[in-house]
């Protein structure tokens, strides 16, 4: 490649999956009408005081443990002071020099560097600000404070990423871990995951970091990659034409694919952090932290390894199935309900994943899918017929797989008499092919099987058809010889 090495660090904000806000009892529901989830605390009314949400602390702790961080027994809430109309108190309650957790890592397979371990500098808890709405009232800016006070964990990575592709892979892995741990929904569409990226370039082999820029306003992981590609190219072009990279904040435009510097702020912000006197230091007992660690659900890497060994799944299958916590959970439920693991995996990676991606849920219960798989195994349904039944069940989940198959007339017939009937009809209807078969053209057997399936409207059990066919054709030779 080029002589330039890219250095990227990411700051990720995830919304902690709580019912109520970080410091008050207002709901966190997404999409409610503007300014409906408000109270004196998150409005910053005179005299109101914050009280920490224990569930938010628990979730942030889980997230920190899932990322291998050290969770500190004592951390401190701090005020980050700045004026902005979406910030009701004129400061954001965050954590500064005493964050909840430090020193974890995220590992993933990089297409360029193999297994990559990215350090997590810190994870801290904070409240979100509100939102400015520019398109609602012409010529005016409105403020929606529903998001003000939403609990967030900010996860800061070390500058350990070396390409935009790695940045995307890091995000995918981080998201997977946090969703597995139940910490956050990590939905960029609903604003429960946001990414800011720091990027710089340096000559390969150089140990000093170049001047970094910050890239914001990326609304998908794909766009993070695109934005960083664009910014890397911009920096390389600057340096290669003898210019310098200025420390600026850039906004990504998903339509043009370009990054543009924000209006340069003449003065850099001095946030005047200091410990929030309204909140005593957050003290967590070692016992409690240990309990959270024990209660941590199985994480993607461990689950993938287990699926490979416990169910003898191919590496590829285990990776696909564990890509989403819910998919893996569904898979195991299907196996628990009696299905063969590899067959269940095939189903989960195909029909189940399609419905899940479309609808975000699993309309066919694991028990019913296992039942369907059983019907195929015992020869009652062909695989094709089972897929039709699955589609039917996905529309009407209350139905029973076998009853649905019967109603659709998809039950396979393996009864010798019925099969013999269809076979005789086919052989009678195709004397020329029978003659060619007897003349030695034995590959016509599959032609006869196909005709039987057609005549039976797919109901004939193909495994049962072949012996009957062979037996009849054999007998015809004998009777001709007599």
């Amino acid at each position, binding site marked *: 490649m080029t002589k330039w090495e890219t250095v990227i660090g990411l700051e990720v904000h995830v919304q902690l999956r709580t019912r109520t806000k970080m410091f008050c009892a207002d709901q966190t529901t997404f999409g409610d009408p503007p300014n409906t989830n408000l109270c*004196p605390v998150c*409005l*910053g*009314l*005179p*005299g*109101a*005081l*914050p*009280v*920490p949400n224990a569930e938010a602390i628990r979730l942030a702790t889980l997230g920190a443990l899932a990322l291998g961080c050290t969770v500190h027994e004592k951390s401190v809430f701090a*005020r980050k*002071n700045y*004026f902005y*109309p979406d910030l*009701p*108190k*004129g*400061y954001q309650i965050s954590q500064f020099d005493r964050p909840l957790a430090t020193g974890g890592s995220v590992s993933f397979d990089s297409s360029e560097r193999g297994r990559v371990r990215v350090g997590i500098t810190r994870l801290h808890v904070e409240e979100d600000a509100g939102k400015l709405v520019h398109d609602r009232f012409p010529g005016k800016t409105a*403020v929606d404070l529903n998001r003000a006070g939403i609990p967030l964990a900010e996860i800061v990575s070390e500058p350990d990423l070396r390409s935009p592709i790695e940045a995307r892979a890091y995000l995918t892995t981080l998201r997977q871990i946090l969703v597995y741990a139940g910490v956050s929904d990590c939905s960029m569409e609903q604003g429960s995951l946001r990414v800011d990226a720091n990027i710089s370039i340096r000559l390969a082999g150089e140990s000093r970091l170049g001047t970094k820029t910050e890239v914001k306003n990326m609304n998908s992981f794909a766009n993070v990659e695109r934005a960083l590609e664009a910014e890397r190219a911009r920096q390389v072009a600057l340096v290669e034409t003898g210019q310098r990279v200025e420390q600026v904040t850039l906004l990504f435009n998903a339509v043009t694919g370009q990054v543009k510097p924000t209006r340069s702020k003449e003065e850099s912000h*001095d946030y*005047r*952090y*200091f410990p*929030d*006197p*309204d*909140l*005593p230091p957050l003290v967590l007992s070692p016992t409690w932290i240990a309990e959270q660690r024990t209660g941590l659900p199985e994480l993607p890497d461990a689950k993938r390894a287990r699926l490979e060994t416990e169910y003898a799944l191919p590496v590829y299958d285990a990776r696909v199935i564990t890509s989403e916590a819910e998919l893996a959970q569904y898979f195991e439920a299907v196996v628990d309900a009696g299905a063969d693991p590899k067959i269940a995996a095939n189903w989960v990676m195909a029909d189940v994943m399609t419905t899940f991606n479309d609808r975000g849920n699993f309309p066919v219960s694991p028990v019913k899918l296992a039942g369907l798989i059983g019907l195929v195994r015992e020869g009652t349904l062909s695989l094709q017929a089972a897929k039709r039944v699955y589609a039917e069940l996905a529309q009407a989940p209350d139905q029973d797989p076998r009853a649905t198959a019967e109603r659709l007339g998809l039950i396979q017939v393996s009864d010798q008499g019925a099969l013999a009937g269809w076979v005789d009809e086919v052989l009678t209807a195709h004397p020329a092919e029978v003659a060619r078969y007897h003349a030695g053209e034995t590959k016509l057997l599959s032609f006869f099987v196909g005709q039987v399936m057609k005549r039976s409207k797919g109901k004939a059990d193909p495994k049962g058809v072949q012996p009957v066919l062979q037996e009849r054709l054999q007998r015809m030779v004998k009777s001709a010889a007599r």
Partner: protein
Amino acid sequence: MSTVVSGAAAVATETGKRLAAAEGLNATLSWSQDLLDAEATRVDSMAEPGPLAGMALALKDNIVTVEQPSTCASRILEGYVSPYNATVVGRLRAAGAMIAVKANMDEFAMGSSTEHSAFGRVKHPLAPDRVPGGSSGGSAALVAAGVVPAALGSETGGSVRQPASFCGVVGVKPSYGRVSRYGLVAFGSSLDCISVFGRTVKDAAQVLSVMSGSDPLDATTVNRPPMRVPEPLQNLRGLTVGVPREYFPPDLHAGVAAALRATIARVRELGGEIRELSLPNSSYAVPTYYIIAPAEAAANLARYDGVRYGPRRIGPEGDIRSLYRATRGQGFGQEVQRRILIGTYVLSAGYYDAYYKKAQQVRSLIAQDFRRAFESGIDLLLTPTTPTPAFKAGEKTDDPVAMYLADIFVCSVNLAGLPAVSIPAGRSEGLPIGAQLIAPAFEEERLLAAAAALERVIPAAAEVR
């Protein structure tokens, strides 16, 4: 059938008359007879009368109620009515108190004279040309003038004990964390305490006892059982009362010195032991306080930006920065602006360590002085509350530091989070003088039992010699 005027209703009527008669003091910012009467009706219909049944209380205007504006004596909150009640308001009302009077104060509780009120100063009830002290001067004056038996103030750096001393009433500041701050408009959050004025120690203790106790809405309240109203001690036998040298400088006002000498004598007469001691870091209290309190205030007052509530002023440029500048530049008075500037400065990058961090370290040393004193066998400390009696209006308005030094004996207690009381200790040239007792954290019962014993033997209204 005849109309019986019940207890609370009669009190409401009387209180209204006294309020009207005291209008000249400029001690209130809002009250109404209708509201007083409504409160009386509510109290009279209570199934259980409660320990404060029929007691009319005045509230400093930085404690929010839904019925009246809560302005903090600032233009920036002119007309602002809170949609919720402070925690203490609910507790006091449940105990039978009537709340319908909001008292004047220094703007956002910043000041020692009420001269920083945006709505004019309060007059001292005994000497109209003098100040009642501050910042809770309106509440102090209303109790001193006999309008209400007790009133709520707030302390960040002595703002109840100092005016109590000036006005000749009892002023009690509880331990930090004893009373919920929910609904007290924040000034210096690590120091702010809702505190009480009373004509007697018992009245003040009763009010404090009702308000005390942890509050799920204030994370800094301490989970302890509420304070009980102590029985006054018959004597002070077995109590060691410490007298810290640093609180008796050579230039102490002669009347104050005489009043304290007399109080010390009373302690001995009651069987208490007097022990001299040193609190070596006392002299750093005022500078430490004037770093920590403004730093917290600068953040606490950032919310008054004209965006969500309060008067909004559009600046000449018409943009949001200009709106902030105009709203805050015109809405805040000079002293508030001065403290916001100090607070912003001491938290700035490059200055934090030299000022805010250093001040926090000194604060620990000041608290340690007190802790060591109490660990050395001292039960209570006795000091003057203020270095002088009430000063004349206008005397210190051009010299902020001179004004700050009026709190020299009171603000170390706030830095250490301790409970303390100022009780009347006689008069000098007709002006009241206060004696301050300080107790270890959460020893309010010991503090108030001793204060009540002394109160009985000190001729509060007599000239000291």
